[in-house]
């Protein structure tokens, strides 16, 4: 009787922990949190406008996630946003003239950074900077430009 009771209690505790563990791996972003396979390295990219980019936003090449934004700060001298990108070694060696742009998934989706590899034989190394960047397109600014651009020119002389 006593052994059976202890067995049941043990099974209960194991079941509880097993459920929590399985849920953590199957239904949360634990895979990203616990790091990518094969290690990562960091590169820096400067943007004049990051839109609603947030830390931990995905970094993609050809639509495939290869890393994430690890840190987003403002450079107090040049007033530019400095994004640190943590990129998995599994993505291979990126050419040094790789360019980075901030895009939106879908019309209203979240922001992500898209990398477009160039053709330089030299590879980006840990701590390098991506020089070619393209800022986020802010929808309100576009609409504003369109509206006021039309108003300034007056009727008949739309740009």
């Amino acid at each position, binding site marked *: 009787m006593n052994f059976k*009771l202890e067995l*049941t*209690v043990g099974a*209960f*505790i194991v079941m*509880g*922990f097993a*459920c929590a563990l399985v849920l953590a791996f*199957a239904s*949360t972003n634990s895979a990203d949190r616990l790091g990518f396979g094969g290690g990562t390295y960091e590169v820096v990219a400067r943007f004049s406008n990051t839109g609603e980019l947030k830390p931990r936003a995905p970094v993609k090449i050809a639509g495939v996630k290869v890393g994430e934004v690890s840190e987003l700060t403002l450079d107090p001298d040049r007033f530019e946003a400095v994004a640190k990108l943590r990129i998995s070694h599994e993505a291979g060696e990126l050419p040094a003239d790789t360019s980075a742009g901030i895009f939106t998934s879908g019309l209203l989706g979240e922001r992500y950074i898209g990398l477009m590899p160039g053709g330089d034989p030299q590879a980006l190394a840990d701590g390098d900077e991506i020089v070619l960047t393209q800022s986020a397109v802010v929808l309100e600014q576009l609409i504003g430009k369109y509206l006021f651009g039309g108003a300034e020119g007056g009727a008949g002389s739309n740009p």
Partner: protein
Amino acid sequence: MAKWLASLGRIGLFQWRVLRATDLRRGQLGDIARQLYTVGARSLPIVAVGGLFVGLVISLQGYRALETIGAGSALGTAIGIPLYRELGPVLAAILFCGRAGSSMAAELGLMRATDQITALSMMAIDPIGKVVAPRWLAAFISVPLLTAVFCAFAILGGYLQAVWALGIDAGFFWSSLQNSVDLAEDFGQCFVKAGFFGVATALVSTYVGYHAEPTIEGTSIATTRSVVHGSLMVLFLDFLLTATLY
């Protein structure tokens, strides 16, 4: 006001005495194991079935709402976020209150009514250490574990409903879950809340049971109170935690 403060103080002192009386060396482990069995392991069926049905239902209702904007494939998000942030810990704790908190309170109330608690102190055995602390600890350990089981079955129910009945692709289901549920923010919140609810349900049911009027009626009042006050406490704490921590 003064009365209210005094009762709060009584509860606090009671909690302090329970913690002071917790000593795992003196044969308390056996008591705790027995309580874990009656309080925790035997609550598994209701918690599992409850979780399964909650998962089935949020899946159905979430799909109903998402389908109007053509976003049915994001159903995983609609299940994961509310489940981990609110429904999982709250419903598991309330089910625990009804299934196990009431039985703990009834047991302690009956011990009080039949003078068993007085008998223990006559034999110089601390009744808090012997009968209250093992129940308190067992409840405190059980609630987070049962919450995990509840969430697992709710996700399973949601998955079955989404993939088998509503025809959503399994890959969409899991990827929308993994993309939206954050390990620390959402999943962690689930277990922080479960810990607090474990303390609340354990404290309420042992307190009302231990302090029951030593009559048959007193026992029944204590049982009712453990469920009503326990559930209200869980809901109130949930609001407080959501408002302050997240």
